[in-house]
C-alpha cells in the first residue's frame, strides 16, 4: 500500500519518473494502455498550448482574466487518467487540464474565461462541477456527491481539487471531515504549487507537509511529486481503489509549481525570484512525460511536432469561435435564476427589454 509506504510522517515523496522522464522506480511503474497514455499526453499538450495562448489573448485585450495551469499538468492528468467515466470531478479554478480530460470542451473553457456562463453548461454526460471560485467550498460539494453515490450504490468516486492556500480555509476542513466521517468515496488532491497569489506556502500552514493534514481526519495521506504524471496516476489509482472498497477518502498532496502568474492580473515578479521559477523549469511535467512516451515509442518527435501544430490551430480557431459568440442576451441573463421567472423578474426583464430596445445598450 503506497499510502502506508509513503505515510507523510516518513517524509518521503512518491516519485516514478525523474526530471528527464526516466523511470527511477520500476516496481511502481503502472501499466497504462497505450491509447490512454496517448490521450493523457494529448490532453497535456492541448492544455499547455491553450494555457499559453490564453495568456496571449488576454495580453491582446481579447480574453478576460485567466488562471494559468502551466507546470501543473501532471498533477491533473495523472489523477484523471486513473478515473473512469463514472467518476466525478469537483474543481477549484486552476484545473483546465483535468477538465479537458474529463470531457469539458476547450470551447466551453474559453467561453467561461471569456466571461460567459454558457461556458459552464457542460455536455450532459460530463460529470464535472463548474469552476469554483470561493476557496475551499468545493470540498463539501464533493463530499455530498460522494455521499449520494454511496447511499444510492452508484459506482462513482469523486475527485476534488484544492490549492495549498486553500487548505487554510474552514471550508476545506469541514468538507474533508464530513467526507471522512461518512466514509464516502472521495479523493482530495491538494495542488501545492507553493503560492497562493503572493502568499507563500509557509503562510498556509506551519505543518511541514500538507499531506499530514490527513491525520487530522483519520484518513491516509501521501506526498507525491506533482510534476510526475505516473506518480500522480498510481497514487490516485490506489486512493480510488480504497474509495471503491468503502474505505473512505484519501488525501494526496501534489508537490508542484505554478510557472505562470496567479491570474493574468497578477505580476509574480513582485513576490518571487526568477531563480525559483527557473529551478522548477527543470521539473517540467510535460517534458518528463513526453520523454517517457518517446522512450516508450508511443510518440515520436515528428508526431509530436504535428500534434503541436494541430493544437495550435485548434486553439486559435476555438478561441476565434468563442470571440465571435459576442455578448450574452438579456433573456439568458434572467432565465436561470429560477426554473421559472417570478412575476417580479418578468417585470424587471420586460422593463429592461423595453429600455434596451429603445435606448440600446
Amino acid at each position, binding site marked *: 500500500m503506497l499510502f502506508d509506504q509513503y505515510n507523510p510522517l516518513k517524509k518521503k515523496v512518491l516519485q516514478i519518473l525523474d526530471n528527464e522522464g526516466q523511470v527511477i522506480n520500476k516496481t511502481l511503474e503502472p501499466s497504462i494502455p497505450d491509447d490512454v497514455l496517448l490521450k493523457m499526453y494529448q490532453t497535456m499538450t492541448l492544455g499547455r498550448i491553450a494555457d499559453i495562448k490564453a495568456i496571449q489573448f488576454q495580453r491582446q485585450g481579447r480574453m478576460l482574466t485567466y488562471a494559468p495551469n502551466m507546470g501543473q499538468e501532471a498533477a491533473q492528468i495523472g489523477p484523471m487518467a486513473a478515473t473512469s467515466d463514472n467518476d466525478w470531478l469537483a474543481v477549484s479554478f486552476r484545473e483546465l487540464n483535468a477538465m479537458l480530460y474529463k470531457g469539458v470542451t476547450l470551447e466551453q473553457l474559453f467561453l467561461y474565461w471569456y466571461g460567459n456562463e454558457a461556458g459552464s453548461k*457542460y455536455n450532459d454526460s460530463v460529470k464535472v462541477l463548474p469552476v469554483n471560485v*470561493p476557496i475551499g*467550498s468545493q470540498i463539501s*460539494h464533493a463530499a*455530498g456527491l460522494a455521499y*449520494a453515490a454511496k447511499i444510492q450504490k452508484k459506482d462513482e468516486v469523486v475527485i476534488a481539487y484544492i490549492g495549498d492556500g486553500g487548505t487554510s480555509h474552514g*471550508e476545506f476542513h469541514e468538507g474533508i471531515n464530513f467526507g471522512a*466521517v461518512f466514509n464516502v468515496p472521495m479523493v482530495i488532491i491538494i495542488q501545492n504549487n507553493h503560492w497562493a497569489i503572493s502568499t507563500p506556502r509557509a503562510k498556509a500552514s506551519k505543518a511541514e507537509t500538507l499531506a499530514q493534514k490527513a491525520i487530522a481526519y483519520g484518513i491516509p495521506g501521501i506526498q507525491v511529486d506533482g510534476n510526475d504524471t505516473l506518480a500522480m496516476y498510481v497514487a490516485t489509482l490506489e486512493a480510488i481503489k480504497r474509495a471503491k472498497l468503502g474505505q473512505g477518502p484519501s488525501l494526496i498532496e501534489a508537490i508542484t509549481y505554478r510557472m505562470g502568474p496567479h491570474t493574468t492580473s497578477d505580476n509574480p515578479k513582485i513576490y518571487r525570484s526568477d531563480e525559483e521559477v527557473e529551478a522548477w523549469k527543470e521539473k517540467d511535467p510535460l517534458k518528463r512525460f513526453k520523454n517517457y512516451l518517446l522512450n516508450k515509442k508511443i510518440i515520436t518527435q515528428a508526431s509530436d511536432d504535428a500534434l503541436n501544430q494541430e493544437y495550435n490551430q485548434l486553439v486559435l480557431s476555438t478561441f476565434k469561435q468563442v470571440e465571435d459568440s459576442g455578448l450574452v442576451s438579456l433573456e439568458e441573463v434572467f432565465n*436561470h435564476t429560477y426554473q421559472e421567472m417570478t412575476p417580479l423578474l418578468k417585470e424587471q426583464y420586460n422593463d429592461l427589454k423595453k429600455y434596451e430596445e429603445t435606448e440600446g445598450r
Partner: protein
Amino acid sequence: MALLNILEAVNKALETEMQKDPSIVVYGEDAGFEGGVFRATAGLQKQFGVDRVFDVPIAEAAIVGSAIGMAINGLKPVVEMQFSGFMFPGYNQIVTHVARFRNRSRSKYTLPLVIRMPYGGGVKALEHHSESLETLFAHIPGLKLVIPSTPYDTLGLLRSAMRDPDPVIFMEPKRIYRAFKQEVPDEDYTVPIGKAKVVIPGKDITVVAWGAMVREVESALKLIENDNISVEVIDLRTIAPFDRETIVESVKKTGRLLVVHEAVKSFGPGAEIVATVQEKAFYYLAAAPKRLTAPDITVPLPKGEHHFMIDPKQIALEIRNIVSMKA
C-alpha cells in the same frame, strides 16, 4: 384529519414526502438519532434508516455544501440548521452556491433542496437563538424564502418546498411551534409558494405579517374590537418572491398599510414591502405606510427581551394611529 401543531406538521410533511420520494434525505446537527433539538425530525431515522436520516458533524458550511453535492447527484436533501442564528457559517455556501448553481451552469445543475431553520424570539433563549434573519435570504437572487404561521400551511408549504425545482429556505417560527393545533387533511395537499393569504378581509387598513406575528396581529384586533376599524390581515407566507399582487390590491382598497415583523427595522423586510406598495399604489395611499418592528439592536437576553418584542397592544395602537390619519 389529524390535529397537529406546527412542529408536528413539519414532521408530517417530512414523513409523507419521504414515503413518496426515496431521494429525500434529512440531516442536520442532532437531527438523526434524537430527531432534532425540537424533535422536528423525530421518528424519521427509525422509519427511513440512517442513510436517509442522520446526524452530522457540527459544521454548517459542510451541511449546506454537502447538500449541494447530493442535490446534484440525485438526492433531495432537506437539511436543518439547528437555529437560524447558527446558519452564518453556512451562509457562504447558501449565497455563493445554493443561490447560484442553476444560473452559473445555465441550468445544467439545479438544486432541489430545502434548508429548514427555527427562527424568532420570545422563547427566553440564549444569545443567537432568537434572531429573525429574513432579509439575509430575501435579498439574495436565486433563493426562495417561506415562513408558515399555521400547522395547515406548514404542512402544505413544506411539501411545496420539497417539490420545488429550486432551493427553498424554510424558516419556522419556533415560538409557536407548539402554540396551537389545527385540523389538517390526511390526503395529500400543498400550499403554493409565492401566494400570500388574506386571513381576515377588511377595508380600512391592510396589516401584513408572517410567522409568529400573525397571531399577535390577531390578538391586537381583539383589543380594538369596538373601534369600528375594518382591518385586512394578510399572512405573507412567502417572503421571497413575495405576493406583490395581493398586497398591492389590498392597499389599493384600504389606502393604508402596516407591516409588522420581528426582525429589526433598518434595512429589514418591512422596508421592501413599504417601498413596493408606494411604487405600485402611491396614488391610493391615504396615510404613510408604516412598519412596526423590533428596534435596531441585538436581540436582548431574556431579562430584557420584552423591550424588543412586539406586543398586541403596540399593534393595536399603531393601527388606530394610522387609521386616524386624515386622507
